[in-house]
């Protein structure tokens, strides 16, 4: 842990300084042009505070990934603007860590090399990067697996390495695109709990995309519900469950109420979409 504190990447201070504010103003994202134009995200405005844990919840294909990719810098909004800490997002960068839905570790690098890759790119020496990698691998419980190749790990382990890799750059924002989507229910619950633990330690802003209502309610301070295409945020729900949350939190009445509310919103939205299609 000491090594981590020693290492400060220039321009990306720890989150205790209140970094990680996200501002989206009137952003629309259209793929293609003319008749084949597809409106994936429609005039979305959004403010996320530093250190907030926000879940974006919505049906498949509604534009969740697209919105997240706009924050990450992979997609440019067709109109409107996205900025992080007041700086317009132009391209991907290490201040916004990304955890993908598919496995995205570099298969030709060991677990250890994958995690130390970011610090290396930021100019850390081999030993510095190595101690950072060890710290974060320890944090996700995979210190012993450093010399393995990604293909030798289970899916859950690979995603943990993915999280460690994103955190190793001390990002002010952690963007997660259905990171636990491919995991079994048991592993998923475990991963959710350990993600919350890590988040409590770092206080990074987290934007977490999911289509699982339970996951969203369990994790988030705020759940943003998106409509089916074209994607818009139709509900901004605050979840005031006490933290730290454990699997027992699911029994609390606030949890159940929030869950019911989300489900009802999604149901009425999909009914609307269905009627729209049948007109």
């Amino acid at each position, binding site marked *: 842990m000491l090594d981590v504190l020693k290492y400060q990447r220039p321009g990306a201070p720890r989150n205790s300084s209140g970094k990680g504010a996200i501002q989206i103003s009137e952003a629309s994202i259209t793929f293609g042009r003319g008749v084949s134009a597809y409106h994936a995200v429609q005039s979305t405005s959004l403010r996320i505070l530093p250190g907030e844990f926000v879940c974006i919840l919505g049906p498949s294909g509604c534009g969740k990934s697209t919105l997240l990719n706009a924050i990450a810098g992979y997609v440019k909004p067709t109109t409107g603007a996205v900025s992080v800490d007041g700086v317009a997002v132009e391209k*991907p*960068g*290490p201040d916004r860590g990304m955890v993908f839905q598919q496995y995205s570790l*570099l*298969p030709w690098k060991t677990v250890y090399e994958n995690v130390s890759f970011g610090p290396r*790119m930021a100019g850390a020496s081999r030993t510095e990067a190595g101690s950072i990698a060890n710290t974060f691998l320890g944090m996700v419980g995979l210190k012993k697996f450093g010399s393995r*190749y990604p293909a*030798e790990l289970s899916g859950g382990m690979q995603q943990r390495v993915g999280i460690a890799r994103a955190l190793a750059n001390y990002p002010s924002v952690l963007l997660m695109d259905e990171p636990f989507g491919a995991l079994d229910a048991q592993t998923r619950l475990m991963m959710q709990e350990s993600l919350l633990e890590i988040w409590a330690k770092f206080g990074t802003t987290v934007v977490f995309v999911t289509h699982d209502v339970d996951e969203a309610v369990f994790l988030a301070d705020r759940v943003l519900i998106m409509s089916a295409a074209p994607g818009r945020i139709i509900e901004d729900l605050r979840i005031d469950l006490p933290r730290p949350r454990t699997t027992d939190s699911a029994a609390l009445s606030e949890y159940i109420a929030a869950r019911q509310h989300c489900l009802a919103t999604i149901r009425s939205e999909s009914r609307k979409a269905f009627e729209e299609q049948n007109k």
Partner: protein
Amino acid sequence: MTQAVQTLSEEPIPLGQTEQSALSKDPAPTVTPGLLRRALHPDLLRSLGLGLLSLAAGVLFWHWASATNLNVFVNFENVPGPGKVFASFLGHLETEIFYTHIRVSMQRILISYSIAAALGIGLGLIMGRSRIVRAFVMPYIEVIRPIPAVAWIPLAILMWPTEEASIIYITFLGALFPIVLNTLHGVEQTPEVLVRAAQSLGASRLAIFAHVVLPAAMPSISAGLAIGMGVSWFSLLAGEIISGQYGIGYFTWNAYSLINYQDIVVGMLVIGFLGTASTAAIKLLTKPLLKWQKRTR
């Protein structure tokens, strides 16, 4: 021969896949050293045995066909039997010139193949990442690739200052295309999510090239290198028509014009053996670069 060139360089074959499946049969690690364990592996021994058995059967058939002057559509009457060919081969082993032929050919291969590998991988990588370069270079590849090595001979003689340069040019050309195309194919196979991951970790364009694109293309590149080695051998054979003195291809052509049937077969078999051996050497050399694949299940 034209056809052989075509089929060999047509489709990039991902080499890694086949090796992967063979390796995945390895039993759980034991105390036996890895190399020995692999060498004594029953599956490997069996396929080795089967290969030898098949070759022996082929030689036996060849012997029988030429001994009985078999003439059923394919005529074996003038084909020398394995005994004669082997005797002729042993005879050549006593002469110094035979080794010179082999040495000269191997030198030519080494030079032209090295140039083809360096240029082919470089060009393939750049073409894979730049649409402009790709659009610019591709027409040349499309047009030149189908031209068989033999067809180049007259022009090569006119264009290059020395015989040696012409032969090397023709051999180089044969190896170049499979290497370029396989490299290009490999680069195109790079999963976009890996590029994105590297970008969000702060990697520069150059770093992405070195840490993501090149390793992702490596299985395909090494397949291209292996195919290119094979193709360079039969391009060499064509090129050595030009050579007035040395080379195993020259040896074979010379035997042909002297109507020395045994030597033709000796030449053919030596080329076959050298081609196989050098392709195996290339695979062995690129293997360490693919060691991460080995562990993929």
